[in-house]
């Protein structure tokens, strides 16, 4: 019918017409492609970076998710920070520091002449304002869903419900801030580098009601606009605008006290779907993204894109719940360690750069020991140990998550299948148990329901306590054991002030842990970022503290 065909023809023609005049616009005035930068030189330009989701809020004290921290790291700064690409501490807003003999009083000499983005002065009073703000959190702000890092590094709050490492902050003069602790702590300094402890403008915090929690007791609402519209810090970039679901824009801070950023502007575009991120890089709609799927790494590299690797700072492990026999039998646990062919799994299913884990912390972190017991693949030894153990019922329930991809475990099912085969080869009967990550799996593991399970951990900051301390310093339902020797060793290691002494203590502790075999660590991975050709200056960090200030379009 002529009419029908007319419509179809019209539709096709308009589509073609649009496409034709479209392709000019795409590489036109608004620079998106790396090769067509605004100027011929190095300075300036706009970078569009693909993220996996929007930030939650741009208030360091209130978040612990990677996407919020990514942006916060550009707008704000801490007293001390990590060296680019590593975990050692270097000065930031504090140019030097010293601790009292008993390790409880820390004096920080601050940078001078620094201004917040709202032109107010950065000084010791501002530092103390921030610390006291965090210490005085109440209600929902105290929960781990909000102020996770404060509880991890300092423990309790001013209400005294749990003991706190923090005692007080004193602004001796504009350039000297003195922080007093209730006990000596060597992890304190590494903890301070965490982005939760960025120093924000007291003026903005107050004016934009950063701590306003409204709603009702059982339905609290965060009502302030500090973290959504006015995140004022001292960093090399300033906040420019945020439309959730669409994009977040930051611009260069020309009043920055340090080396100014090269780029004019960075736009963060949330793209939840991994393949969509990759395609967006390949079409030029974005110039870089994080959390590259290991399966894409080779293809992208072959296509001329730059793959940057983050130094390994995580651990994937098989966890044991010793409250569930026969896991309470050490010989059985050792047998499992020998039975699992970890090297084969890492070689077959993990991208280049992943390495077999020998203990519950990565080699780059001090306290790692080269002398831990070696559980290299040895199925014969496993069978011998099983015989020695005297255990006859070798049925175990093996839990794995069905639907998730974690940096240390991109394909849980593959790991499970490999380990199941290894265990059955030495005589175990494996009963698979699976649930979606957020819908039951984590709950089962935490509640102590899971007998043997796949899990892992990405480090928050450069201190062994954040790895082995998190797992084994206190009794936990998921691990199901009570080994006072290990608890004491890790507590002593955490509380020692001298770095050399701590290193030795953690090395000893790691040996002790691996003799006890509370679980079998099996991998450390290097998550990757991808960038368009020509982009330079991005330095991946093991703790994901990465600045865009040194990035240029090339």
């Amino acid at each position, binding site marked *: 019918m002529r*009419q029908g065909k007319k419509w*179809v023809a019209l*539709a096709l023609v308009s589509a073609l017409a649009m496409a034709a005049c479209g392709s000019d*616009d795409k590489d036109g005035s608004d620079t998106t492609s790396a090769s067509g930068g605004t100027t011929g030189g190095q300075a300036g330009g706009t970078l569009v970076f693909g993220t996996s989701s929007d930030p939650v809020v741009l208030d360091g004290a209130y978040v612990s998710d990677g996407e919020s921290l990514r942006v916060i790291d550009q707008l704000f700064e801490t007293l001390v920070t990590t060296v680019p690409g590593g975990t050692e501490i270097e000065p930031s807003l504090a140019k030097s520091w010293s601790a009292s003999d008993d390790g409880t009083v820390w004096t920080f000499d601050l940078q001078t002449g620094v201004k917040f983005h709202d032109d107010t002065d950065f000084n010791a009073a501002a530092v103390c304002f921030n610390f006291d703000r965090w210490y005085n959190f109440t209600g929902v702000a105290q929960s781990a869903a909000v102020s996770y890092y404060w509880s991890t590094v300092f423990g309790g709050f001013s209400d005294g419900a749990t003991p706190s490492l923090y005692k007080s902050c004193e602004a001796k003069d504009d350039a000297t801030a003195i922080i007093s602790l209730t006990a000596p702590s060597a992890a304190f300094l590494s903890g301070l580098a965490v982005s939760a402890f960025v120093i924000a403008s007291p003026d903005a915090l107050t004016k934009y009601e950063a701590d306003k929690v409204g709603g009702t007791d059982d*339905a609290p609402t965060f009502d302030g606009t500090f973290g959504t519209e006015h995140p004022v810090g001292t960093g090399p970039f300033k906040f420019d605008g945020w439309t959730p679901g669409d994009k977040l824009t930051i611009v260069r801070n020309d009043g920055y006290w340090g080396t100014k950023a090269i780029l004019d502007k960075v*736009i963060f575009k949330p793209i939840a779907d991994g393949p*969509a991120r990759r395609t967006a890089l390949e*079409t030029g709609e974005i110039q870089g993204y994080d959390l590259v799927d290991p399966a894409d790494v080779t293809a992208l590299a072959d296509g001329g894109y730059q793959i940057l690797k983050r130094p390994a700072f995580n651990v994937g492990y098989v966890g044991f719940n010793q409250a569930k026999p026969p896991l309470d039998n050490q010989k059985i646990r050792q047998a499992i360690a020998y039975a699992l062919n970890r090297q084969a799994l890492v070689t077959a299913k993990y991208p280049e750069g992943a390495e077999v884990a020998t203990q519950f912390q990565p080699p780059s972190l001090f306290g790692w020991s080269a002398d831990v017991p070696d559980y290299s693949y040895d199925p014969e030894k496993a069978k011998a140990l099983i015989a020695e153990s005297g255990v006859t019922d070798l049925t175990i329930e093996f839990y794995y998550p069905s639907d998730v991809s974690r940096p240390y475990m991109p394909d849980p099912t593959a790991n499970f299948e490999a380990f199941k085969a290894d265990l059955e080869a030495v005589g175990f009967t494996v009963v698979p148990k699976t649930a979606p990550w*957020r819908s039951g799996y*984590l709950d089962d593991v935490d509640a102590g329901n899971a007998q043997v399970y796949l899990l892992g951990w990405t480090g928050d900051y450069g201190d062994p306590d954040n790895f082995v301390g998190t797992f084994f310093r206190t009794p936990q339902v998921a691990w199901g054991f009570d080994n006072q020797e290990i608890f004491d060793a890790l507590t002593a290691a955490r509380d020692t002030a001298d770095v050399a002494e701590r290193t030795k203590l953690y090395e000893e502790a790691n040996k002790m842990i691996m003799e006890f075999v509370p679980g079998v660590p099996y991998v450390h991975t290097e998550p990757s970022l991808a960038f368009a050709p020509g982009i330079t200056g991005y330095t991946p960090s093991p703790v994901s503290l990465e600045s865009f200030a040194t990035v240029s379009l090339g």
Partner: protein
Amino acid sequence: MFKFIVRRLLLLIPILLGLSFLLFIWVRALPGGPATALLGERATPERVAQVNAAYGFDKPVLEQYFKYLGRVARFEFGQSITLRKDVTEELLRRFPATVELAAAAMVFAVGLGIPLGFAAAKRERSWVDSTAVVASLAGVSIPVFFLAQILKWIFALKLNWFPTIGRLQPTRELEHVTNFNLIDSVIALDGGAWVDTVKHLVLPGIALGTIPLAIIARITRASVLEVLNEDYVRTARAKGMSRRIVDRRHVLRNALLPIVTVVGLQTGLLLSGAVLTETVFAWGGIGQLLSGAVLDKDYPVIQGGVLFLAVVFVLVNLIVDVLYAVIDPRIRVR
């Protein structure tokens, strides 16, 4: 007519009440909760208990429900636990994105589907008919995310004709007045933005529209076939009326009723959030918000979002029913 509309709107109240209760209970009965979703590997029983206490999730369910009803009566739908943003604000802010996408998909589906179905019916059992039938089957069968990847690969990566993510080029600025980019770019007199918006609508619109396209084409074909066999059509042709006028005045208008029903239902479905399409094209609409909320067990967003969509669906159906009376005077809405 007016009484009919009012009565239908009043029906919304028991529907929403019942729905909210079922949803409230069901979502809390599922394994996992917002605390574990929020905390991930960092979850410990103590931390989970702390978060649950802070949000009142450890109270008896019925107690939670009545407190919730109290807030709803004051139009307070709460804040997203994971996003920490007002639920109503987020829904209203993202809805235009979903509407624009649904509109693009329906323009594609209706614009192509009705002529296709019509042509197939007129040439019953010809190659046109067979192609249309097979194409419809294919359209319904191909998974949306797979189709989306193919479309991206051909039209974006290889041909460089269309973009693949978002509603606008990230480097482009547009003042958000209504959040309908097509309207906002007109308000801002920004021709470039308008073209950019349309270009961003093409691939997701096609991906989303293939299923409605297939269904509309088939319904059109069936309905037109039925009308073509009616006596009055044969009489009109016998009287000497041109084929074109008969088609327009008698065939199409009478065949429209079932087609309108299907278009209405499909629109309602599309507005419920084209979850997969929105995720694959990073669209920033309701679908992505809700699917994320379900995974994260973000109770306030799930509750508010589903109720919101129920209202939308009821309103769309109401419009369809009113349209019946407009199209066919024989139908009286009582």
